């Protein structure tokens, strides 16, 4: 038996639950502790765990670097885009009241959208930073 069997089986069992937990934290951020930042970090942690156990090469195959780069910019775009959308609908920048038929639902949709933007950016930044640190060799002087 390969001596890393425990790590690999354990990671294989845990990673799906970590991803689902991240989504739970994201969408229940309205009703309990949570929100975009925590969810983004937990989502990234699942991929970092995969990289630690299965190696950076396999992780780069699963999640090529262009995806975290794209995600980090996309999240900021979503956030600013919601602001521009509310301006386009007649209200001020980031005034969510106009996003739906009544202000309370508009606030709900607005908060959901911007928290999703935050999730995407934080996920992209954490994974891309990890790739930058881990993909570098060591020059022994």
């Amino acid at each position, binding site marked *: 038996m390969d001596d890393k069997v425990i790590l690999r089986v354990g990671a294989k069992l845990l990673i799906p639950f970590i991803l689902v937990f991240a989504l739970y934290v994201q969408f229940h951020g309205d*009703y*309990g*502790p949570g*929100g975009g*930042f925590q969810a983004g970090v937990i989502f990234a942690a699942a991929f970092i765990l995969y990289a630690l156990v299965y190696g950076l090469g396999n992780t780069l195959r699963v999640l090529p670097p262009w995806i975290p780069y794209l995600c980090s910019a996309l999240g900021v775009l979503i956030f600013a885009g919601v602001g521009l959308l509310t301006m386009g609908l007649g209200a001020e920048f980031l005034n969510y009241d106009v996003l739906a038929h009544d202000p309370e639902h508009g606030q709900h949709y607005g908060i959901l959208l911007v928290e999703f933007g935050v999730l995407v950016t*934080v996920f992209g*930044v954490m994974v891309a*930073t990890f790739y*930058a*640190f881990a993909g*570098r060799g060591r*020059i022994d*002087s």
Partner: protein
Amino acid sequence: MNFLVGHYNYEVVILLMMVGFYILISRGNLVKKLLGLSLFQTSVFIMYISLGKVAGGTAPILMGGHGGDDHAAEDAGGHAVGGADQAAEVLGNAAAEVAQAAGQTAEAAGHASGAGEVLYSNPLPHVLILTAIVVGIATTAVGLSLVIRIKESYGTIEEDEIHDMDESL
């Protein structure tokens, strides 16, 4: 003694801040400096959150859910009133009056707990510190990247040796 209990948090947090600050300025290893900075930042967060705590309060997540508290109170009151009507038919007026009074009390209690009888800790420092934590990790990541590049350029991350190499150019 009252002063000690009232201010204990702040003083110990200032001690933690100063330990972090001391690590930052007295140690020459760049990674150790960044660790000291991270310690300093976390202690500042503890200070802010201590300022936002309200004695007897709870986490700033509203109890009773999404307006469900008022709905539940109205339902309870409604059921009690409905039961009171049936009771009037079966048991007579006195029992019906008691049941109606119970229904009104349930409604009143529901409104009272929904109307802010619960004490919440101040949510504003929490928001500020959430932002600060994320910005802190961002700056730590940039700092660590700089340390890696310095190591590759100079071959060392001890501040004294880097300074000597710069001086000897």
